[in-house]
């Protein structure tokens, strides 16, 4: 859900990136933009100005998600480090209500003290399909994710792997298999040793008992 300027420098191993919930994609050096949110970009600017002028609590961060041209296309309101969490939460809720009134999508993450505001509902499944189409990949896709927003992408992949950590909602992950966060390096190592062929026989891989899809 981060923007390209955040992801790309941190992932020197990658060939393609989908950022801001699929609103922007980069394949090699080519940037591909989604045309799904054009009519809502003015409302993002309005709501961002509203958030800046109505949040006065110390420690509340408004993180802008910018496209490759420097336009703010989404933002996050984060009160994890607020000095007074109660007041901060109240102010953040006012911003959320204003954003919803403008028809924007407010994405919450379980009980986490932050939310994202998007011009359209981000769909990681659609983002994954768009990227595979750009890469001309039709098969052999393994997807790793750790939140409910990854469920559409789990369904769009051939093998889906949920990463389990203290904050992941394990029961709501609609993936084939599970792996604990601390064991992800071991899993990747095993994958390389096995010539990049996945097998559920890897010792760190567990079948997801809550899997819903057939």
């Amino acid at each position, binding site marked *: 859900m981060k923007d390209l300027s955040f992801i790309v420098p941190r*992932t*020197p*191993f*990658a*060939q393609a990136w989908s950022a801001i919930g699929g609103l922007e994609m980069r394949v090699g050096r080519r940037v591909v933009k989604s045309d799904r949110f054009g009519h809502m970009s003015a409302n993002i600017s309005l709501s961002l100005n509203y958030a800046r002028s109505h949040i006065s609590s110390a420690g509340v961060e408004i993180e802008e998600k910018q496209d490759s041209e420097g336009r703010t296309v989404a933002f996050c309101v984060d009160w994890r480090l607020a000095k007074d969490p109660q007041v901060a939460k109240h102010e953040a809720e006012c911003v959320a209500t204003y954003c919803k009134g403008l028809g924007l999508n407010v994405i919450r993450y379980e009980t986490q003290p932050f939310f994202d505001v998007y011009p359209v509902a981000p769909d990681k499944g659609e983002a994954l399909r768009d990227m595979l189409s750009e890469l001309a990949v039709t098969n052999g896709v393994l997807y790793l994710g750790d939140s409910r927003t990854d469920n559409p992408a789990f369904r769009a992949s051939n093998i889906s792997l949920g990463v389990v950590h203290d904050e992941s909602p394990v029961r709501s992950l609609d993936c084939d298999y599970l792996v604990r*966060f*601390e064991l*992800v*390096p071991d899993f*990747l*190592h095993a*994958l*390389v040793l096995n*010539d*990049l062929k996945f097998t559920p026989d890897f010792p760190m891989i567990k079948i997801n008992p809550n899997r819903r899809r057939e």
Partner: protein
Amino acid sequence: MVRRSALDRILQELLQVRYRLDDIEAVIAGWNPRPLEISESELFSLPDHLRKTYLTVMSKGACSAKEVSNISGRCRAMESNYLNQLVRMGWLTKRRDSKTIRFCLISKDVLKEHPQQK
């Protein structure tokens, strides 16, 4: 601290995945002629014993009967027989590489020249 070290290790392992993918891509790019794309449904039209041989050539690239038999675990003579059957059926082509006969996937170019194949 544990999280930080795990993330560092994940980064290292993902770099290894990238290097492996680069190797695979380099091998495939070196295949000449380029292999023909075969759909899964077409593959299932082959009997099991021939499909196993075909998939071995598909994953390894141009290879001899001995190399296929090392991977499949079946004897060389049998693999040689299956490989030649696949050549007659138009799924593979063969070429002589000094004393060794190498089998490889049929390419689009070959299909254009010999449309009766496959």
